[in-house]
Protein backbone atom coordinates (compact mmCIF):
# COMPACT_ATOMS: atom_id res chain seq x y z
CA UNK A 1 0.00 0.00 0.00
CA UNK A 2 1.29 3.41 -0.92
CA UNK A 3 0.80 6.42 1.32
CA UNK A 4 0.15 8.43 -1.81
CA UNK A 5 -3.42 7.20 -2.02
CA UNK A 6 -4.05 9.08 1.22
CA UNK A 7 -2.57 12.30 -0.17
CA UNK A 8 0.84 11.94 1.50
CA UNK A 9 3.54 12.67 -1.05
CA UNK A 10 6.42 13.29 1.28
CA UNK A 11 8.64 16.29 1.75
CA UNK A 12 9.64 16.50 -1.88
CA UNK A 13 6.34 15.45 -3.28
CA UNK A 14 4.68 18.89 -3.63
CA UNK A 15 5.20 19.03 -7.35
CA UNK A 16 3.93 15.50 -7.79
CA UNK A 17 0.90 16.35 -5.59
CA UNK A 18 0.13 19.46 -7.63
CA UNK A 19 0.29 17.46 -10.83
CA UNK A 20 -2.10 14.88 -9.38
CA UNK A 21 -4.46 17.67 -8.32
CA UNK A 22 -4.46 19.21 -11.79
CA UNK A 23 -5.18 15.82 -13.39
CA UNK A 24 -7.96 15.03 -10.93
CA UNK A 25 -9.70 18.42 -10.49
CA UNK A 26 -8.32 20.60 -13.23
CA UNK A 27 -6.87 23.28 -10.90
CA UNK A 28 -4.10 23.39 -8.30
CA UNK A 29 -5.06 23.49 -4.62
CA UNK A 30 -4.82 27.22 -3.93
CA UNK A 31 -7.21 27.99 -6.76
CA UNK A 32 -9.60 25.30 -5.57
CA UNK A 33 -9.60 26.80 -2.08
CA UNK A 34 -10.29 30.27 -3.45
CA UNK A 35 -13.16 28.92 -5.53
CA UNK A 36 -14.72 27.23 -2.50
CA UNK A 37 -14.44 30.42 -0.46
CA UNK A 38 -16.19 32.43 -3.19
CA UNK A 39 -18.94 29.85 -3.44
CA UNK A 40 -19.42 29.97 0.34
CA UNK A 41 -19.64 33.76 0.17
CA UNK A 42 -22.46 33.51 -2.34
CA UNK A 43 -24.41 30.87 -0.53
CA UNK A 44 -24.11 32.24 3.02
CA UNK A 45 -24.27 36.11 2.73
CA UNK A 46 -25.28 36.65 6.33
CA UNK A 47 -23.22 39.75 6.92
CA UNK A 48 -24.19 41.32 3.59
CA UNK A 49 -27.91 40.80 4.28
CA UNK A 50 -27.51 42.25 7.75
CA UNK A 51 -25.83 45.35 6.32
CA UNK A 52 -28.64 45.91 3.84
CA UNK A 53 -31.38 45.39 6.40
CA UNK A 54 -29.69 47.49 9.08
CA UNK A 55 -29.08 50.34 6.65
CA UNK A 56 -32.65 50.40 5.38
CA UNK A 57 -34.19 50.08 8.85
CA UNK A 58 -31.98 52.86 10.17
CA UNK A 59 -32.93 55.08 7.21
CA UNK A 60 -36.63 54.35 7.74
CA UNK A 61 -36.42 55.21 11.45
CA UNK A 62 -34.27 58.27 10.89
CA UNK A 63 -36.73 59.78 8.42
CA UNK A 64 -39.61 59.16 10.82
CA UNK A 65 -37.78 60.76 13.74
CA UNK A 66 -36.87 63.72 11.56
CA UNK A 67 -40.59 64.31 10.95
CA UNK A 68 -41.96 63.30 14.35
CA UNK A 69 -39.57 65.12 16.67
CA UNK A 70 -39.11 68.83 16.07
CA UNK A 71 -36.52 69.44 18.75
CA UNK A 72 -33.67 70.74 16.63
CA UNK A 73 -35.60 73.14 14.41
CA UNK A 74 -36.27 75.91 16.98
CA UNK A 75 -32.56 75.95 17.90
CA UNK A 76 -30.80 75.28 14.60
CA UNK A 77 -33.42 76.47 12.13
CA UNK A 78 -33.37 73.13 10.30
CA UNK A 79 -34.05 69.45 11.00
CA UNK A 80 -30.85 67.35 10.69
CA UNK A 81 -30.90 64.64 8.04
CA UNK A 82 -29.22 61.24 8.49
CA UNK A 83 -29.63 59.96 4.92
CA UNK A 84 -26.46 61.59 3.47
CA UNK A 85 -24.31 60.11 6.27
CA UNK A 86 -25.85 56.68 5.70
CA UNK A 87 -25.19 56.96 1.99
CA UNK A 88 -21.52 57.85 2.60
CA UNK A 89 -21.08 54.71 4.68
CA UNK A 90 -23.05 52.52 2.28
CA UNK A 91 -21.07 53.74 -0.73
CA UNK A 92 -17.66 53.31 0.87
CA UNK A 93 -18.14 50.12 2.81
CA UNK A 94 -20.77 47.98 1.11
CA UNK A 95 -21.85 46.87 -2.33
CA UNK A 96 -23.33 48.92 -5.10
CA UNK A 97 -26.68 47.17 -4.70
CA UNK A 98 -26.98 48.69 -1.22
CA UNK A 99 -26.39 52.13 -2.72
CA UNK A 100 -29.27 51.64 -5.12
CA UNK A 101 -31.56 50.30 -2.40
CA UNK A 102 -30.80 53.13 0.02
CA UNK A 103 -31.25 55.77 -2.67
CA UNK A 104 -34.56 54.30 -3.78
CA UNK A 105 -36.17 53.42 -0.45
CA UNK A 106 -34.61 56.17 1.65
CA UNK A 107 -35.52 58.79 -0.92
CA UNK A 108 -39.09 57.53 -1.24
CA UNK A 109 -39.46 57.45 2.55
CA UNK A 110 -38.35 61.06 2.81
CA UNK A 111 -40.65 62.17 -0.01
CA UNK A 112 -43.65 60.32 1.45
CA UNK A 113 -43.36 62.19 4.76
CA UNK A 114 -42.59 65.60 3.27
CA UNK A 115 -44.17 67.90 0.71
CA UNK A 116 -41.53 66.95 -1.87
CA UNK A 117 -42.69 65.56 -5.22
CA UNK A 118 -42.23 61.81 -5.00
CA UNK A 119 -38.90 60.68 -6.42
CA UNK A 120 -37.01 63.95 -6.04
CA UNK A 121 -34.81 62.87 -3.13
CA UNK A 122 -33.68 59.57 -4.67
CA UNK A 123 -31.67 61.09 -7.52
CA UNK A 124 -29.33 63.28 -5.41
CA UNK A 125 -28.74 60.40 -3.01
CA UNK A 126 -28.00 58.08 -5.91
CA UNK A 127 -25.60 60.58 -7.47
CA UNK A 128 -23.74 60.95 -4.19
CA UNK A 129 -23.58 57.20 -3.67
CA UNK A 130 -22.33 56.46 -7.17
CA UNK A 131 -19.61 59.11 -7.07
CA UNK A 132 -18.33 57.87 -3.74
CA UNK A 133 -18.54 54.21 -4.65
CA UNK A 134 -16.66 54.66 -7.89
CA UNK A 135 -13.87 56.50 -6.06
CA UNK A 136 -13.83 54.52 -2.83
CA UNK A 137 -10.41 53.06 -3.53
CA UNK A 138 -8.97 56.56 -3.53
CA UNK A 139 -10.51 57.52 -0.18
CA UNK A 140 -9.05 56.86 3.25
CA UNK A 141 -12.38 55.48 4.30
CA UNK A 142 -11.14 54.11 7.61
CA UNK A 143 -9.92 57.50 8.82
CA UNK A 144 -12.44 59.48 10.92
CA UNK A 145 -11.21 62.76 9.46
CA UNK A 146 -11.92 61.58 5.92
CA UNK A 147 -15.32 60.28 7.03
CA UNK A 148 -16.14 63.65 8.61
CA UNK A 149 -15.10 65.60 5.51
CA UNK A 150 -17.13 63.37 3.24
CA UNK A 151 -20.08 63.61 5.64
CA UNK A 152 -19.89 67.41 5.57
CA UNK A 153 -19.76 67.50 1.78
CA UNK A 154 -22.63 65.03 1.54
CA UNK A 155 -24.71 66.94 4.09
CA UNK A 156 -24.41 70.10 2.03
CA UNK A 157 -24.54 68.53 -1.43
CA UNK A 158 -27.72 66.45 -1.11
CA UNK A 159 -30.03 69.33 -0.08
CA UNK A 160 -28.43 71.60 -2.68
CA UNK A 161 -28.99 69.06 -5.45
CA UNK A 162 -32.54 68.46 -4.24
CA UNK A 163 -33.39 72.15 -4.27
CA UNK A 164 -31.80 72.48 -7.70
CA UNK A 165 -33.91 69.61 -8.97
CA UNK A 166 -37.06 71.16 -7.48
CA UNK A 167 -36.32 74.51 -9.14
CA UNK A 168 -35.66 72.84 -12.47
CA UNK A 169 -39.01 71.03 -12.21
CA UNK A 170 -40.81 74.35 -11.74
CA UNK A 171 -41.53 74.14 -8.02
CA UNK A 172 -40.98 77.02 -5.61
CA UNK A 173 -39.08 75.78 -2.59
CA UNK A 174 -38.44 78.23 0.21
CA UNK A 175 -34.87 79.43 -0.42
CA UNK A 176 -33.10 82.62 0.48
CA UNK A 177 -30.06 83.87 2.35
CA UNK A 178 -31.16 81.80 5.34
CA UNK A 179 -30.63 78.68 3.24
CA UNK A 180 -26.88 79.25 3.54
CA UNK A 181 -27.14 78.94 7.30
CA UNK A 182 -29.27 75.81 6.95
CA UNK A 183 -26.73 74.29 4.54
CA UNK A 184 -23.90 75.06 6.94
CA UNK A 185 -25.78 73.41 9.81
CA UNK A 186 -26.48 70.32 7.71
CA UNK A 187 -22.81 70.13 6.69
CA UNK A 188 -21.65 70.32 10.31
CA UNK A 189 -24.23 67.72 11.27
CA UNK A 190 -23.01 65.43 8.48
CA UNK A 191 -19.41 65.85 9.61
CA UNK A 192 -20.34 64.94 13.18
CA UNK A 193 -22.62 62.01 12.45
CA UNK A 194 -20.81 60.19 9.62
CA UNK A 195 -17.93 58.84 11.77
CA UNK A 196 -20.53 57.67 14.29
CA UNK A 197 -22.38 55.79 11.55
CA UNK A 198 -19.13 54.10 10.55
CA UNK A 199 -18.53 53.11 14.16
CA UNK A 200 -22.05 51.80 14.55
CA UNK A 201 -21.83 49.57 11.51
CA UNK A 202 -18.32 48.54 12.48
CA UNK A 203 -19.73 47.37 15.80
CA UNK A 204 -22.47 45.46 13.98
CA UNK A 205 -19.87 43.74 11.80
CA UNK A 206 -17.84 42.87 14.87
CA UNK A 207 -20.84 41.40 16.69
CA UNK A 208 -22.42 39.50 13.83
CA UNK A 209 -19.53 38.87 11.47
CA UNK A 210 -17.10 35.95 11.40
CA UNK A 211 -14.28 36.22 13.91
CA UNK A 212 -10.88 36.77 12.29
CA UNK A 213 -8.84 33.57 12.13
CA UNK A 214 -5.61 33.38 14.07
CA UNK A 215 -2.25 32.08 12.85
CA UNK A 216 -3.10 28.56 14.01
CA UNK A 217 -0.91 26.08 15.89
CA UNK A 218 1.12 24.79 12.91
CA UNK A 219 4.88 25.26 13.31
CA UNK A 220 7.20 24.22 10.50
CA UNK A 221 9.89 23.06 12.93
CA UNK A 222 7.45 20.65 14.55
CA UNK A 223 6.31 19.02 11.31
CA UNK A 224 6.65 15.24 11.23
CA UNK A 225 8.52 14.50 8.06
CA UNK A 226 7.71 11.24 6.39
CA UNK A 227 9.75 9.25 4.09
CA UNK A 228 13.49 9.05 4.22
CA UNK A 229 14.96 11.59 6.65
Amino acid sequence: MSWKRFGCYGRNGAEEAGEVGRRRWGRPAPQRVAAWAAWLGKEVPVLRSLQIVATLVLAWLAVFLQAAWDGFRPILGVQPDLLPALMVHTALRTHLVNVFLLAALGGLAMDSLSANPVGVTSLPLLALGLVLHMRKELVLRDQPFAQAVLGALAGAAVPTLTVGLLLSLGHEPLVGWGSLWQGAVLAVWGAAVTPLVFRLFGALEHWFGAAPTGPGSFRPDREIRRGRV
Partner: protein
Amino acid sequence: MWKRSHSVALGLLAGLSLLLLSLPEELAARFKVAFGALYLPLLGLAGAAHQAAQETAGLMVSRRELLRQNEQLRRENAQLRLETLQAAEWARENARLRRLLGWQEQSPWRDRLRLARVTLREPTPWWRSFTIDLGSRQGVRTGLPVLTPEGLVGRTSEVGPFHARVVLVGDANCRVSAQVLNVTGDTGLIGPAGPLDRDLVLLSYLPRTAVVRPGQAVVTSGLGGIFPKGIPIGTVVDVRPAGDGLYLEARVQLAAPLHVLEEVWVLWP
Protein backbone atom coordinates in the same frame (compact mmCIF):
# COMPACT_ATOMS: atom_id res chain seq x y z
CA MET B 1 -15.91 47.15 -10.50
CA TRP B 2 -18.70 48.40 -12.69
CA LYS B 3 -20.75 45.60 -14.22
CA ARG B 4 -23.50 45.41 -16.74
CA SER B 5 -26.03 44.60 -14.01
CA HIS B 6 -25.11 47.87 -12.30
CA SER B 7 -25.87 49.77 -15.47
CA VAL B 8 -29.25 48.07 -15.64
CA ALA B 9 -29.99 48.91 -12.00
CA LEU B 10 -28.91 52.52 -12.53
CA GLY B 11 -31.11 52.83 -15.56
CA LEU B 12 -34.06 51.33 -13.71
CA LEU B 13 -33.69 53.59 -10.68
CA ALA B 14 -33.18 56.73 -12.72
CA GLY B 15 -36.08 55.78 -14.94
CA LEU B 16 -38.31 55.11 -11.94
CA SER B 17 -37.41 58.47 -10.39
CA LEU B 18 -38.10 60.33 -13.61
CA LEU B 19 -41.34 58.43 -14.06
CA LEU B 20 -42.48 59.32 -10.55
CA LEU B 21 -41.54 62.96 -11.06
CA SER B 22 -43.55 63.14 -14.26
CA LEU B 23 -46.70 61.56 -12.81
CA PRO B 24 -49.85 63.69 -12.61
CA GLU B 25 -50.29 65.36 -9.25
CA GLU B 26 -53.16 63.15 -8.15
CA LEU B 27 -51.37 59.90 -8.98
CA ALA B 28 -48.18 61.11 -7.32
CA ALA B 29 -50.15 62.00 -4.18
CA ARG B 30 -51.69 58.53 -4.13
CA PHE B 31 -48.27 56.94 -4.48
CA LYS B 32 -46.98 59.04 -1.60
CA VAL B 33 -49.91 58.05 0.57
CA ALA B 34 -49.41 54.38 -0.30
CA PHE B 35 -45.69 54.51 0.53
CA GLY B 36 -46.38 56.53 3.65
CA ALA B 37 -48.53 53.67 4.92
CA LEU B 38 -45.24 52.05 5.99
CA TYR B 39 -45.16 54.60 8.80
CA LEU B 40 -48.66 53.95 10.15
CA PRO B 41 -47.44 51.59 12.90
CA LEU B 42 -44.88 54.16 14.04
CA LEU B 43 -47.52 56.89 14.00
CA GLY B 44 -49.72 54.79 16.24
CA LEU B 45 -46.82 54.16 18.61
CA ALA B 46 -45.91 57.85 18.65
CA GLY B 47 -49.51 58.81 19.38
CA ALA B 48 -49.75 56.31 22.22
CA ALA B 49 -46.44 57.51 23.65
CA HIS B 50 -47.58 61.12 23.44
CA GLN B 51 -50.82 60.32 25.21
CA ALA B 52 -49.02 58.35 27.91
CA ALA B 53 -46.62 61.25 28.44
CA GLN B 54 -49.50 63.70 28.75
CA GLU B 55 -51.30 61.48 31.24
CA THR B 56 -48.14 61.08 33.26
CA ALA B 57 -47.59 64.83 33.25
CA GLY B 58 -51.20 65.29 34.34
CA LEU B 59 -50.68 62.97 37.30
CA MET B 60 -47.76 65.07 38.47
CA VAL B 61 -49.68 68.36 38.61
CA SER B 62 -50.60 69.42 42.16
CA ARG B 63 -54.24 69.65 43.31
CA ARG B 64 -53.87 73.37 44.01
CA GLU B 65 -52.69 74.00 40.45
CA LEU B 66 -55.57 71.94 39.05
CA LEU B 67 -58.09 73.93 41.08
CA ARG B 68 -56.53 77.17 39.91
CA GLN B 69 -56.70 76.10 36.26
CA ASN B 70 -60.26 74.91 36.74
CA GLU B 71 -61.32 78.29 38.14
CA GLN B 72 -59.57 80.14 35.31
CA LEU B 73 -61.26 77.97 32.69
CA ARG B 74 -64.63 78.49 34.39
CA ARG B 75 -64.21 82.29 34.16
CA GLU B 76 -63.12 82.10 30.52
CA ASN B 77 -66.08 79.87 29.73
CA ALA B 78 -68.50 82.34 31.27
CA GLN B 79 -66.95 85.23 29.34
CA LEU B 80 -67.08 83.30 26.09
CA ARG B 81 -70.74 82.43 26.66
CA LEU B 82 -71.55 86.11 27.00
CA GLU B 83 -69.59 86.91 23.85
CA THR B 84 -71.39 84.10 22.05
CA LEU B 85 -74.75 85.56 23.03
CA GLN B 86 -73.73 88.92 21.67
CA ALA B 87 -72.30 87.36 18.50
CA ALA B 88 -75.53 85.41 18.00
CA GLU B 89 -77.46 88.67 18.19
CA TRP B 90 -75.13 90.26 15.63
CA ALA B 91 -75.56 87.23 13.35
CA ARG B 92 -79.35 87.55 13.55
CA GLU B 93 -79.14 91.25 12.79
CA ASN B 94 -76.76 90.50 9.89
CA ALA B 95 -79.13 87.91 8.46
CA ARG B 96 -82.11 90.30 8.82
CA LEU B 97 -80.26 93.08 7.04
CA ARG B 98 -79.13 90.69 4.30
CA ARG B 99 -82.73 89.64 3.74
CA LEU B 100 -83.78 93.27 3.54
CA LEU B 101 -81.12 93.96 0.93
CA GLY B 102 -81.85 90.77 -0.95
CA TRP B 103 -78.39 89.30 -0.39
CA GLN B 104 -77.66 85.58 -0.07
CA GLU B 105 -77.50 84.31 3.50
CA GLN B 106 -74.18 83.12 4.89
CA SER B 107 -73.92 79.96 6.94
CA PRO B 108 -71.81 80.47 10.04
CA TRP B 109 -68.60 78.54 9.62
CA ARG B 110 -68.13 78.08 13.33
CA ASP B 111 -70.56 75.14 13.13
CA ARG B 112 -68.47 73.35 10.52
CA LEU B 113 -65.22 72.92 12.41
CA ARG B 114 -63.64 69.60 13.28
CA LEU B 115 -60.69 69.09 15.61
CA ALA B 116 -57.53 67.38 14.33
CA ARG B 117 -54.21 66.55 15.93
CA VAL B 118 -50.83 67.33 14.38
CA THR B 119 -48.91 64.06 13.95
CA LEU B 120 -45.85 64.78 11.80
CA ARG B 121 -44.04 67.95 10.77
CA GLU B 122 -42.20 68.79 7.59
CA PRO B 123 -38.72 67.21 7.70
CA THR B 124 -37.24 69.37 4.91
CA PRO B 125 -36.34 73.04 5.39
CA TRP B 126 -37.78 74.28 2.08
CA TRP B 127 -41.47 73.53 2.67
CA ARG B 128 -43.92 74.58 5.37
CA SER B 129 -46.39 71.83 6.16
CA PHE B 130 -47.46 69.23 8.68
CA THR B 131 -49.67 66.13 8.80
CA ILE B 132 -52.92 65.79 10.73
CA ASP B 133 -54.76 62.68 11.85
CA LEU B 134 -57.88 63.22 9.74
CA GLY B 135 -58.20 61.78 6.25
CA SER B 136 -60.66 60.93 3.53
CA ARG B 137 -62.30 58.34 5.77
CA GLN B 138 -63.42 61.25 7.99
CA GLY B 139 -64.50 63.35 4.99
CA VAL B 140 -61.40 65.48 4.50
CA ARG B 141 -60.62 66.57 0.97
CA THR B 142 -58.11 68.84 -0.73
CA GLY B 143 -58.46 72.58 -0.24
CA LEU B 144 -60.16 72.74 3.16
CA PRO B 145 -59.11 75.68 5.37
CA VAL B 146 -57.32 74.85 8.60
CA LEU B 147 -57.27 77.30 11.50
CA THR B 148 -56.92 77.73 15.23
CA PRO B 149 -58.65 80.11 17.62
CA GLU B 150 -55.68 82.44 17.14
CA GLY B 151 -55.89 82.57 13.37
CA LEU B 152 -55.35 80.98 9.99
CA VAL B 153 -53.01 77.99 9.69
CA GLY B 154 -53.28 76.83 6.08
CA ARG B 155 -55.19 74.41 3.87
CA THR B 156 -55.28 70.68 3.25
CA SER B 157 -53.35 69.42 0.23
CA GLU B 158 -52.53 65.69 0.04
CA VAL B 159 -55.26 63.57 1.59
CA GLY B 160 -54.88 59.91 2.49
CA PRO B 161 -57.43 57.61 4.08
CA PHE B 162 -56.28 58.35 7.64
CA HIS B 163 -54.01 61.39 7.39
CA ALA B 164 -53.83 64.62 5.45
CA ARG B 165 -51.07 67.10 4.75
CA VAL B 166 -51.70 70.74 5.63
CA VAL B 167 -49.78 73.35 3.67
CA LEU B 168 -49.12 76.27 5.99
CA VAL B 169 -49.46 79.97 5.42
CA GLY B 170 -45.98 81.06 4.45
CA ASP B 171 -45.43 78.20 2.02
CA ALA B 172 -45.20 78.99 -1.66
CA ASN B 173 -48.07 76.58 -2.37
CA CYS B 174 -50.47 78.37 0.01
CA ARG B 175 -51.09 81.89 -1.27
CA VAL B 176 -53.84 83.68 0.63
CA SER B 177 -55.73 86.78 -0.40
CA ALA B 178 -55.63 89.07 2.62
CA GLN B 179 -57.11 92.37 3.66
CA VAL B 180 -55.63 94.95 5.97
CA LEU B 181 -58.11 96.24 8.54
CA ASN B 182 -57.52 99.92 7.80
CA VAL B 183 -59.79 102.67 6.56
CA THR B 184 -59.51 101.67 2.91
CA GLY B 185 -59.46 97.89 3.44
CA ASP B 186 -56.50 97.34 1.11
CA THR B 187 -56.00 93.80 -0.16
CA GLY B 188 -52.86 91.93 -1.08
CA LEU B 189 -51.43 88.45 -1.40
CA ILE B 190 -49.77 86.54 1.43
CA GLY B 191 -46.60 84.72 0.43
CA PRO B 192 -43.45 83.27 2.01
CA ALA B 193 -40.91 85.48 3.73
CA GLY B 194 -37.58 83.69 4.27
CA PRO B 195 -36.45 80.17 5.14
CA LEU B 196 -35.58 81.18 8.72
CA ASP B 197 -38.57 83.51 9.30
CA ARG B 198 -40.90 80.95 10.80
CA ASP B 199 -43.52 83.37 12.12
CA LEU B 200 -43.37 86.01 9.39
CA VAL B 201 -45.00 86.20 5.99
CA LEU B 202 -45.02 88.83 3.26
CA LEU B 203 -48.17 90.69 2.24
CA SER B 204 -47.37 91.77 -1.29
CA TYR B 205 -49.06 93.72 -4.08
CA LEU B 206 -50.56 96.34 -1.79
CA PRO B 207 -51.45 99.48 -3.71
CA ARG B 208 -48.84 102.23 -3.64
CA THR B 209 -51.37 104.57 -2.06
CA ALA B 210 -52.33 102.10 0.69
CA VAL B 211 -52.19 103.48 4.22
CA VAL B 212 -50.67 100.53 6.06
CA ARG B 213 -49.17 101.02 9.50
CA PRO B 214 -47.39 98.63 11.89
CA GLY B 215 -49.81 97.03 14.29
CA GLN B 216 -52.77 96.86 11.93
CA ALA B 217 -54.57 93.55 11.76
CA VAL B 218 -54.61 91.42 8.60
CA VAL B 219 -57.48 89.03 7.88
CA THR B 220 -58.56 86.83 4.98
CA SER B 221 -60.44 88.76 2.32
CA GLY B 222 -62.68 85.89 1.18
CA LEU B 223 -61.45 86.25 -2.41
CA GLY B 224 -60.31 83.07 -4.13
CA GLY B 225 -63.05 80.82 -2.79
CA ILE B 226 -60.97 78.76 -0.37
CA PHE B 227 -60.71 80.80 2.84
CA PRO B 228 -63.83 82.49 4.25
CA LYS B 229 -63.66 86.18 4.94
CA GLY B 230 -62.55 87.50 8.27
CA ILE B 231 -60.16 84.80 9.59
CA PRO B 232 -57.28 86.55 11.38
CA ILE B 233 -53.88 86.09 9.77
CA GLY B 234 -51.63 88.38 11.81
CA THR B 235 -50.48 91.94 12.39
CA VAL B 236 -48.36 94.23 10.25
CA VAL B 237 -44.73 94.58 11.38
CA ASP B 238 -43.39 96.98 8.78
CA VAL B 239 -44.04 98.23 5.24
CA ARG B 240 -41.70 99.06 2.40
CA PRO B 241 -41.93 99.71 -1.33
CA ALA B 242 -41.23 96.73 -3.59
CA GLY B 243 -41.25 95.79 -7.24
CA ASP B 244 -39.25 98.90 -8.13
CA GLY B 245 -41.84 101.04 -6.38
CA LEU B 246 -44.85 99.58 -8.17
CA TYR B 247 -46.48 98.28 -5.00
CA LEU B 248 -46.04 98.02 -1.25
CA GLU B 249 -44.93 94.98 0.66
CA ALA B 250 -45.60 94.44 4.35
CA ARG B 251 -44.16 91.89 6.73
CA VAL B 252 -46.89 90.28 8.81
CA GLN B 253 -46.39 88.54 12.13
CA LEU B 254 -48.59 85.46 12.09
CA ALA B 255 -51.25 85.19 14.77
CA ALA B 256 -51.23 81.41 14.99
CA PRO B 257 -48.01 79.86 16.39
CA LEU B 258 -47.57 77.43 13.50
CA HIS B 259 -44.51 75.61 14.76
CA VAL B 260 -45.79 74.66 18.20
CA LEU B 261 -49.33 73.68 17.24
CA GLU B 262 -50.56 70.35 18.45
CA GLU B 263 -54.26 70.69 17.57
CA VAL B 264 -55.96 72.50 14.72
CA TRP B 265 -59.49 72.91 13.39
CA VAL B 266 -60.47 71.87 9.88
CA LEU B 267 -63.28 73.84 8.27
CA TRP B 268 -65.73 71.64 6.42
CA PRO B 269 -67.42 72.98 3.28
